[in-house]
Protein backbone atom coordinates (compact mmCIF):
# COMPACT_ATOMS: atom_id res chain seq x y z
CA UNK A 1 0.00 0.00 0.00
CA UNK A 2 1.28 3.46 -0.79
CA UNK A 3 1.31 5.98 2.02
CA UNK A 4 -1.41 8.63 1.89
CA UNK A 5 0.29 11.31 -0.16
CA UNK A 6 0.51 14.89 0.98
CA UNK A 7 -1.98 15.79 -1.75
CA UNK A 8 -4.66 13.49 -0.37
CA UNK A 9 -4.54 14.73 3.20
CA UNK A 10 -4.47 18.33 2.04
CA UNK A 11 -7.57 17.55 -0.03
CA UNK A 12 -9.22 15.98 3.01
CA UNK A 13 -8.40 18.98 5.18
CA UNK A 14 -9.79 21.30 2.47
CA UNK A 15 -13.01 19.27 2.45
CA UNK A 16 -13.28 19.70 6.24
CA UNK A 17 -12.68 23.45 5.87
CA UNK A 18 -15.37 23.66 3.16
CA UNK A 19 -17.81 22.00 5.58
CA UNK A 20 -16.77 24.58 8.20
CA UNK A 21 -17.49 27.36 5.65
CA UNK A 22 -21.01 25.99 5.24
CA UNK A 23 -21.64 25.83 9.01
CA UNK A 24 -23.84 28.98 9.12
CA UNK A 25 -26.36 26.92 7.12
CA UNK A 26 -26.72 24.40 9.96
CA UNK A 27 -30.16 23.78 11.45
CA UNK A 28 -30.77 26.22 14.32
CA UNK A 29 -33.05 23.77 16.16
CA UNK A 30 -32.00 22.25 19.50
CA UNK A 31 -30.32 18.85 19.15
CA UNK A 32 -31.81 15.57 20.34
CA UNK A 33 -30.56 15.82 23.93
CA UNK A 34 -31.52 19.53 24.27
CA UNK A 35 -34.98 18.73 22.90
CA UNK A 36 -35.50 15.93 25.42
CA UNK A 37 -34.13 18.10 28.26
CA UNK A 38 -36.57 20.90 27.32
CA UNK A 39 -39.54 18.55 26.94
CA UNK A 40 -38.81 16.71 30.19
CA UNK A 41 -38.03 19.90 32.10
CA UNK A 42 -34.44 19.27 33.14
CA UNK A 43 -32.76 21.77 30.78
CA UNK A 44 -32.56 24.31 33.62
CA UNK A 45 -30.16 21.98 35.46
CA UNK A 46 -27.47 22.93 32.90
CA UNK A 47 -24.71 25.06 34.40
CA UNK A 48 -23.00 27.85 32.52
CA UNK A 49 -19.38 27.14 31.61
CA UNK A 50 -16.79 28.60 34.04
CA UNK A 51 -15.18 30.49 31.12
CA UNK A 52 -16.00 31.27 27.50
CA UNK A 53 -13.48 31.08 24.68
CA UNK A 54 -15.42 30.52 21.45
CA UNK A 55 -18.71 29.60 23.13
CA UNK A 56 -21.49 28.26 20.90
CA UNK A 57 -19.18 28.29 17.88
CA UNK A 58 -19.36 32.09 17.59
CA UNK A 59 -15.95 33.75 17.43
CA UNK A 60 -16.04 36.67 19.89
CA UNK A 61 -15.73 40.28 18.75
CA UNK A 62 -17.18 39.80 15.25
CA UNK A 63 -20.56 41.45 14.66
CA UNK A 64 -21.49 39.40 11.58
CA UNK A 65 -22.73 36.12 13.05
CA UNK A 66 -22.16 34.04 9.90
CA UNK A 67 -18.57 35.27 9.68
CA UNK A 68 -18.06 34.60 13.42
CA UNK A 69 -19.40 31.05 12.98
CA UNK A 70 -17.21 30.38 9.95
CA UNK A 71 -14.11 31.68 11.74
CA UNK A 72 -14.94 29.53 14.79
CA UNK A 73 -15.34 26.51 12.49
CA UNK A 74 -12.03 27.10 10.73
CA UNK A 75 -10.15 27.64 14.00
CA UNK A 76 -11.69 24.49 15.50
CA UNK A 77 -11.07 22.36 12.41
CA UNK A 78 -7.39 23.35 12.27
CA UNK A 79 -7.01 22.94 16.04
CA UNK A 80 -8.48 19.43 16.00
CA UNK A 81 -6.37 18.55 12.96
CA UNK A 82 -3.16 19.72 14.64
CA UNK A 83 -3.87 18.14 18.03
CA UNK A 84 -4.88 14.77 16.59
CA UNK A 85 -1.92 14.70 14.21
CA UNK A 86 0.39 15.62 17.11
CA UNK A 87 -1.01 12.93 19.40
CA UNK A 88 -0.79 10.31 16.67
CA UNK A 89 2.73 11.33 15.71
CA UNK A 90 3.83 11.20 19.36
CA UNK A 91 2.47 7.67 19.77
CA UNK A 92 4.04 6.59 16.51
CA UNK A 93 7.45 8.01 17.36
CA UNK A 94 7.61 6.24 20.72
CA UNK A 95 7.06 2.93 18.97
CA UNK A 96 9.88 3.73 16.55
CA UNK A 97 12.18 4.57 19.45
CA UNK A 98 11.49 1.23 21.11
CA UNK A 99 12.27 -0.61 17.90
CA UNK A 100 15.70 0.94 17.59
CA UNK A 101 16.75 -0.25 21.06
Amino acid at each position, binding site marked *: *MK*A*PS*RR*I*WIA*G*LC*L*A*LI*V*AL*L*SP*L*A*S*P*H*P*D*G*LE*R*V*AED*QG*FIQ*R*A*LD*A*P*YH*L*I*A*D*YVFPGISNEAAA*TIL*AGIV*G*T*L*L*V*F*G*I*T*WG*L*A*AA*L*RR*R*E*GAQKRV
Partner: protein
Amino acid sequence: MHIPDGFLNPATLAATWVASSGSVGYGVHRLRRELDERQVPLMGVTAAFIFAAQMMNFTVAGGTSGHLLGGALAAILLGPWAAMLALTSVLAVQALVFQDGGLLALGANIWNMAVVGVLVAWAVYRALARLWGQKTWGQALAAFLAAWTSVFVASLMASVELALSGASPWRVVLPAMGGVHALIGIGEGIITLATLALVRAVRPDLLLRRRTSDVGGAL
Protein backbone atom coordinates in the same frame (compact mmCIF):
# COMPACT_ATOMS: atom_id res chain seq x y z
CA MET B 1 -25.76 14.71 22.44
CA HIS B 2 -23.02 16.60 24.27
CA ILE B 3 -24.05 16.56 27.94
CA PRO B 4 -23.52 19.93 29.66
CA ASP B 5 -22.40 20.25 33.28
CA GLY B 6 -25.25 20.10 35.78
CA PHE B 7 -27.17 17.18 34.24
CA LEU B 8 -25.15 14.38 35.87
CA ASN B 9 -24.53 13.70 39.57
CA PRO B 10 -21.03 13.30 41.06
CA ALA B 11 -21.17 9.48 41.20
CA THR B 12 -22.09 9.23 37.51
CA LEU B 13 -19.44 11.82 36.57
CA ALA B 14 -16.79 9.87 38.50
CA ALA B 15 -17.82 6.51 37.03
CA THR B 16 -17.79 7.82 33.46
CA TRP B 17 -14.38 9.50 33.94
CA VAL B 18 -12.93 6.21 35.21
CA ALA B 19 -14.52 4.21 32.39
CA SER B 20 -13.48 6.61 29.63
CA SER B 21 -9.92 7.20 30.85
CA GLY B 22 -9.42 3.46 31.24
CA SER B 23 -10.74 2.81 27.74
CA VAL B 24 -8.83 5.61 26.02
CA GLY B 25 -5.72 4.59 28.00
CA TYR B 26 -6.07 1.05 26.70
CA GLY B 27 -6.59 2.42 23.17
CA VAL B 28 -3.40 4.48 23.46
CA HIS B 29 -1.56 1.38 24.69
CA ARG B 30 -2.73 -0.52 21.59
CA LEU B 31 -1.79 2.38 19.28
CA ARG B 32 1.74 2.51 20.70
CA ARG B 33 2.24 -1.00 19.41
CA GLU B 34 0.17 -0.87 16.24
CA LEU B 35 -0.07 2.66 14.90
CA ASP B 36 1.25 2.76 11.36
CA GLU B 37 3.12 5.95 10.54
CA ARG B 38 1.09 6.25 7.35
CA GLN B 39 -2.09 6.51 9.44
CA VAL B 40 -0.99 9.67 11.24
CA PRO B 41 -2.17 12.19 8.58
CA LEU B 42 -5.39 10.24 8.04
CA MET B 43 -6.16 10.47 11.77
CA GLY B 44 -5.70 14.25 11.72
CA VAL B 45 -7.86 14.68 8.63
CA THR B 46 -10.62 12.36 9.90
CA ALA B 47 -10.81 14.16 13.26
CA ALA B 48 -10.85 17.57 11.54
CA PHE B 49 -13.63 16.48 9.17
CA ILE B 50 -15.71 15.08 12.06
CA PHE B 51 -15.29 18.33 14.02
CA ALA B 52 -16.49 20.39 11.04
CA ALA B 53 -19.32 17.97 10.23
CA GLN B 54 -20.51 18.07 13.86
CA MET B 55 -21.20 21.79 13.37
CA MET B 56 -23.62 20.99 10.52
CA ASN B 57 -26.83 20.24 12.41
CA PHE B 58 -29.59 18.85 10.21
CA THR B 59 -33.28 19.10 11.07
CA VAL B 60 -34.95 15.80 11.87
CA ALA B 61 -38.50 16.39 13.08
CA GLY B 62 -40.57 18.58 15.35
CA GLY B 63 -38.09 21.45 15.64
CA THR B 64 -35.25 19.12 16.58
CA SER B 65 -31.85 18.74 14.96
CA GLY B 66 -29.00 16.30 15.04
CA HIS B 67 -25.49 16.13 13.71
CA LEU B 68 -22.92 13.55 12.76
CA LEU B 69 -21.14 11.87 15.67
CA GLY B 70 -18.62 10.19 13.39
CA GLY B 71 -17.88 7.08 15.47
CA ALA B 72 -18.63 4.70 12.62
CA LEU B 73 -16.87 6.83 10.00
CA ALA B 74 -13.74 7.02 12.15
CA ALA B 75 -13.83 3.32 13.10
CA ILE B 76 -14.19 2.19 9.47
CA LEU B 77 -11.45 4.54 8.21
CA LEU B 78 -8.99 4.22 11.11
CA GLY B 79 -9.82 1.10 13.13
CA PRO B 80 -11.25 1.25 16.66
CA TRP B 81 -8.29 2.51 18.73
CA ALA B 82 -7.26 5.33 16.42
CA ALA B 83 -10.95 6.24 16.05
CA MET B 84 -11.31 6.42 19.83
CA LEU B 85 -8.38 8.82 20.09
CA ALA B 86 -9.60 10.96 17.16
CA LEU B 87 -13.10 11.30 18.66
CA THR B 88 -11.63 12.03 22.10
CA SER B 89 -9.61 14.91 20.71
CA VAL B 90 -12.72 16.28 18.93
CA LEU B 91 -14.75 16.13 22.17
CA ALA B 92 -11.94 17.64 24.27
CA VAL B 93 -11.53 20.62 21.92
CA GLN B 94 -15.32 21.12 21.86
CA ALA B 95 -15.51 21.17 25.66
CA LEU B 96 -12.33 23.19 26.35
CA VAL B 97 -12.51 25.76 23.56
CA PHE B 98 -16.13 25.86 22.35
CA GLN B 99 -18.01 25.25 25.63
CA ASP B 100 -19.93 22.47 23.84
CA GLY B 101 -20.40 19.71 26.41
CA GLY B 102 -19.45 20.26 30.05
CA LEU B 103 -15.94 20.07 31.48
CA LEU B 104 -17.01 17.74 34.29
CA ALA B 105 -19.25 15.86 31.84
CA LEU B 106 -16.39 15.40 29.35
CA GLY B 107 -15.73 11.94 30.79
CA ALA B 108 -19.34 10.95 30.11
CA ASN B 109 -19.30 12.44 26.61
CA ILE B 110 -16.05 10.61 25.78
CA TRP B 111 -17.54 7.41 27.17
CA ASN B 112 -20.79 7.74 25.19
CA MET B 113 -19.46 8.90 21.85
CA ALA B 114 -15.73 8.13 21.62
CA VAL B 115 -15.74 4.77 23.44
CA VAL B 116 -19.20 3.20 23.23
CA GLY B 117 -20.08 4.90 19.91
CA VAL B 118 -16.84 3.77 18.29
CA LEU B 119 -16.77 0.23 19.70
CA VAL B 120 -20.44 -0.44 18.86
CA ALA B 121 -19.90 0.86 15.33
CA TRP B 122 -16.79 -1.28 15.00
CA ALA B 123 -18.47 -4.44 16.29
CA VAL B 124 -21.52 -4.01 14.04
CA TYR B 125 -19.40 -3.19 11.01
CA ARG B 126 -17.06 -6.13 11.56
CA ALA B 127 -19.90 -8.61 12.02
CA LEU B 128 -21.96 -7.43 9.04
CA ALA B 129 -19.01 -6.88 6.70
CA ARG B 130 -17.97 -10.45 7.40
CA LEU B 131 -21.42 -11.59 6.24
CA TRP B 132 -21.94 -9.28 3.28
CA GLY B 133 -18.52 -7.74 2.67
CA GLN B 134 -17.90 -9.36 -0.73
CA LYS B 135 -20.56 -7.15 -2.27
CA THR B 136 -20.43 -3.38 -2.54
CA TRP B 137 -24.02 -3.09 -1.31
CA GLY B 138 -23.08 -5.31 1.62
CA GLN B 139 -20.24 -3.03 2.68
CA ALA B 140 -22.52 -0.02 2.31
CA LEU B 141 -25.33 -1.55 4.32
CA ALA B 142 -22.86 -2.65 7.01
CA ALA B 143 -21.52 0.91 7.26
CA PHE B 144 -25.02 2.41 7.40
CA LEU B 145 -26.19 0.05 10.13
CA ALA B 146 -22.96 0.52 12.10
CA ALA B 147 -23.51 4.29 12.00
CA TRP B 148 -27.18 4.07 12.98
CA THR B 149 -26.55 1.61 15.82
CA SER B 150 -23.64 3.61 17.25
CA VAL B 151 -25.79 6.75 17.55
CA PHE B 152 -28.74 4.84 18.97
CA VAL B 153 -26.68 2.98 21.59
CA ALA B 154 -24.73 6.14 22.53
CA SER B 155 -28.06 7.91 23.16
CA LEU B 156 -29.24 5.02 25.37
CA MET B 157 -25.96 5.25 27.29
CA ALA B 158 -26.56 8.99 27.82
CA SER B 159 -30.13 8.17 28.98
CA VAL B 160 -28.81 5.69 31.53
CA GLU B 161 -26.48 8.37 32.92
CA LEU B 162 -29.31 10.94 33.05
CA ALA B 163 -31.63 8.47 34.80
CA LEU B 164 -28.93 7.40 37.29
CA SER B 165 -28.34 11.09 38.04
CA GLY B 166 -32.02 11.67 38.71
CA ALA B 167 -32.36 14.21 35.88
CA SER B 168 -35.31 12.33 34.40
CA PRO B 169 -37.07 9.02 35.16
CA TRP B 170 -35.96 5.90 33.26
CA ARG B 171 -39.33 5.26 31.62
CA VAL B 172 -39.35 8.82 30.24
CA VAL B 173 -35.77 9.50 29.21
CA LEU B 174 -34.96 6.15 27.57
CA PRO B 175 -37.77 6.18 24.97
CA ALA B 176 -37.45 9.94 24.42
CA MET B 177 -33.70 9.83 23.76
CA GLY B 178 -33.89 6.55 21.85
CA GLY B 179 -36.76 7.79 19.69
CA VAL B 180 -35.18 11.03 18.56
CA HIS B 181 -31.76 9.41 18.03
CA ALA B 182 -33.30 6.63 15.96
CA LEU B 183 -34.11 9.47 13.51
CA ILE B 184 -30.76 11.24 13.91
CA GLY B 185 -29.08 7.87 13.27
CA ILE B 186 -30.52 7.82 9.75
CA GLY B 187 -28.74 11.10 9.05
CA GLU B 188 -25.57 9.64 10.60
CA GLY B 189 -25.87 6.64 8.27
CA ILE B 190 -26.36 8.78 5.16
CA ILE B 191 -23.43 11.13 5.92
CA THR B 192 -21.19 8.18 6.84
CA LEU B 193 -22.04 6.40 3.58
CA ALA B 194 -21.59 9.53 1.46
CA THR B 195 -18.18 10.22 3.00
CA LEU B 196 -17.03 6.61 2.60
CA ALA B 197 -18.23 6.66 -1.03
CA LEU B 198 -16.12 9.76 -1.63
CA VAL B 199 -13.05 8.14 -0.02
CA ARG B 200 -13.66 4.99 -2.05
CA ALA B 201 -13.86 6.98 -5.29
CA VAL B 202 -10.65 8.91 -4.60
CA ARG B 203 -8.51 6.42 -2.69
CA PRO B 204 -10.09 2.97 -2.49
CA ASP B 205 -6.90 1.57 -0.95
CA LEU B 206 -7.60 3.55 2.25
CA LEU B 207 -10.66 1.35 2.76
CA LEU B 208 -9.15 -1.91 1.62
CA ARG B 209 -5.60 -1.85 2.89
CA ARG B 210 -6.24 -3.16 6.38
CA ARG B 211 -8.02 -6.27 5.16
CA THR B 212 -4.86 -8.26 5.73
CA SER B 213 -3.38 -6.26 8.57
CA ASP B 214 -3.59 -6.75 12.30
CA VAL B 215 -4.40 -3.13 13.06
CA GLY B 216 -8.10 -3.57 12.45
CA GLY B 217 -9.80 -1.03 10.26
CA ALA B 218 -12.01 -1.67 7.29
CA LEU B 219 -13.08 -5.27 6.64
